[in-house]
């Protein structure tokens, strides 16, 4: 009956395959929620590190956006800067920098993160590693002095969080003390430093210690994380496995003898909270199968603690996540759940 002329009133119907209805969730919604979840920590950063935190973050975000737009313009594809993912990358990169770095550090880092970390691999969804962390790793390799010494004192506190010690972040202080003890130099002083980590719980929790721009306040980061859990944008498996394994390893191996480590300190200090809730959970670069997510989190925890306790750096969060990112495709592939009835 195709020959019959269709009248004007005949509706033009769309034919596409099922399902015909969809969730209201979208990539921009998810990404802007992550941006919103990072805001408490950002406001905290303004309080602790002053206007510098704002400038450095603004530069990182701006350069990220411009880099993405230019690359997409050149490749003649849709410009997707409004989906929010590049903004997340910019903020996370800035959050992983000391507040005292010169302005071009976030600019170069953001460019590298977006151009190499994201678009060299094909853009959102195809990048194997977290672009912000890759940007940071590039900066660490290229300008290690800026990246490891440009700390500034947080508002109302000292870099180490301890009145007696200056010039180092808490994790570095503890790492030095552990080294002193094993080397047999200044053992008593080192022991008293290790004991004083207990006094650091509150400053670490609140954020009044030295560290990267966005990593210092556990409280403010947790507020954002709770929001993301509530929206179901991050799986619980990764942070639970990550922080859980840090706790166990820190408790067993983190002290002078076995089973005496200050695990609370290891959870609160450094970038663990930022990493476990906001970077290890990056959807693109972490597994989508629940079992894979457990293993991923566990791997992050183990590698972080190996670096913190025996490696050359005081902090191991970002490298551990980058390493586990590389395993993500394998984890997804080999942790497939059993098909129903199989």
């Amino acid at each position, binding site marked *: *009956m195709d020959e019959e002329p269709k009248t004007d009133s005949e*509706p033009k*119907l*769309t*034919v*596409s*395959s*099922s*399902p*015909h*209805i*969809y*969730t209201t*969730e*979208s*990539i921009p*919604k*998810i990404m802007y929620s992550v941006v919103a979840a990072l805001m408490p920590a950002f406001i905290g950063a303004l309080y602790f590190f002053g206007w510098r935190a704002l400038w450095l973050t603004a530069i990182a975000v701006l350069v990220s956006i411009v880099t993405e737009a230019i690359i997409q313009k050149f490749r003649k594809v849709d410009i997707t800067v409004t*989906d929010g993912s590049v903004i997340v990358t910019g903020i996370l990169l800035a959050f992983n920098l000391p507040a005292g770095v010169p302005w071009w550090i976030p600019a170069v880092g953001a460019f590298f993160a977006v151009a190499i970390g994201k678009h060299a691999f*094909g*853009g*959102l*969804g*195809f990048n194997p590693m977290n672009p912000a962390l890759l940007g940071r790793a590039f900066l660490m390799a290229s300008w290690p002095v800026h990246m490891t010494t440009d700390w500034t004192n947080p508002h109302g506190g000292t870099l180490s969080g301890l009145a007696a010690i200056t010039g180092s972040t808490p994790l570095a202080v503890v790492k030095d003390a552990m080294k002193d003890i094993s080397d047999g130099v200044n053992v008593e002083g080192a022991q008293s430093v290790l004991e004083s980590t207990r006094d650091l719980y509150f400053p670490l929790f609140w954020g009044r210690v030295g560290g990267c721009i966005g990593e210092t306040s556990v409280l403010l980061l947790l507020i954002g994380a709770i929001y993301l859990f509530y929206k179901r944008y991050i*799986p619980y498996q990764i942070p639970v496995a990550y922080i859980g394994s840090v706790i166990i390893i820190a408790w067993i191996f983190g002290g002078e003898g076995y089973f005496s480590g200050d695990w609370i300190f290891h959870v609160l200090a450094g970038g663990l909270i930022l990493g476990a809730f906001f970077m290890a959970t990056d*959807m*693109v*670069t*972490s*597994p*989508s*199968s*629940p079992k894979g*997510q457990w293993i991923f989190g566990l791997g992050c925890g183990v590698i972080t603690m190996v670096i913190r306790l025996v490696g050359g750096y005081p902090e191991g969060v970002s490298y551990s996540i980058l390493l586990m990112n590389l395993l*993500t495709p394998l984890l*997804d*592939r080999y942790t*497939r*759940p*059993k*098909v*129903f*009835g*199989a």
Partner: protein
Amino acid sequence: MLHILQKTFKGGIHPPENKDISAAKPIERLPLPGYVVIPLQQHIGKLSEALVQAGDDVVTGQPVSKASGFVSLPSHSSISGKVKSIESFPHPLGQKVPSVIIEGDGEDRMSEQIKFQADYMSLPPDEMKRRITEAGIAGMGGATFPTHVKLSPPQDKPIDTVILNGAECEPYLTADHRLMIEHTEEIVEGFRIILRILGVSRGIIAIEKNKPDAIFLFEKFTKDDPNLELLPLKVKYPQGAEKQLIFASTGRRVPAGKLPMEVRCLVHNVGTAKAIYEAVAYQKPLIERVVTVTGAVKEPKNIRARIGTPLRNLIEFCGGFVGTPGKVIMGGPMMGVAQYTIDVPVIKGTSGVVVLPSEQVREMRLQPCINCGRCVKVCPMNIMPNLAATYIENNLWEEAKSAGALDCMECGSCGYVCPAGRNILHNIRFGKFMILEQEKASKN
């Protein structure tokens, strides 16, 4: 196990139900259409063979085609009048199908064989089955598998439990719901006939909890029958899917790639049970069914329509479209089929006609997978839809198969939840087709 206690299955989604649009509307009879289009294929299986020719006079209920094998079904004229032609006609499931087009005479002269027989329950099971076969009944939940085939399990696969599917988990649809509250007794009788034919003493009536009125009525009609058990189910899509329903009701898992009889179960839809009752007690063939017409139409309704009625008549009976229609879906919005013309007829499996306004029709947003894992979480078959779809996009058929693509029941949950708007199910369907083609090719 937790999932059994909750009477549900793992995974699934909660799309907006939108059932209140039509749930309170009693079933209305559609005026006789001027003509009907009876496709020779309204079921899974072989095309039936036409028994009439252009010019023949037919009465309501008269067979116009006969089954062409065991897995095939006859079709019947749903009105009285004259056969205009037998021609290839657009079919709601896609392709064009040879169909008998009958011009009505408006008299609705009934076939003489249709009459009530009070002692139908004492008929021998073989006679019951014969009547069901002749009535041309196909599964009315939408799967349209010939019912008499399901009622003839092989000797070595005994059935011990039959489940009556009143879940109606598709959003928007209320046809089964209305049927359950307006025809409770007939449905229960039909269910008893099924149990009698199979010689099974355990029948479970499974209804989602969002239909408390139906649960109440079934309670009333079954409470004295020790063989029948009422099972309220958690509201979740796709609760009515066969394997998920069997798991929720009995805790048994149908093995991948196998049929329910593998675990001694059988599932029948409530509409099918009513058709079975009419076939056995009245010798009435399947010539009408209840269809929910809803969404962007002026007055959504539950309509009893003759098989073969053009969808156009149903939409006009509901006052026409509201605004510009974007999609007309036969079936529910999760598993239904979008139509390109509303001239296609109602067939045995038409549970609903859902009109989505053009604003609700989404443009394809071809964004890449962000590996968020939502599809993994909701897939009731425990497939990783993101992986399966990616393998298929890259022509990795073997990988797709080992990822479970063939076990996909096409519920659409993965596509529903994907924030990237990826048409995962479309990919998997294509993959299934390609995997089967490859297997065929390698066998030859």
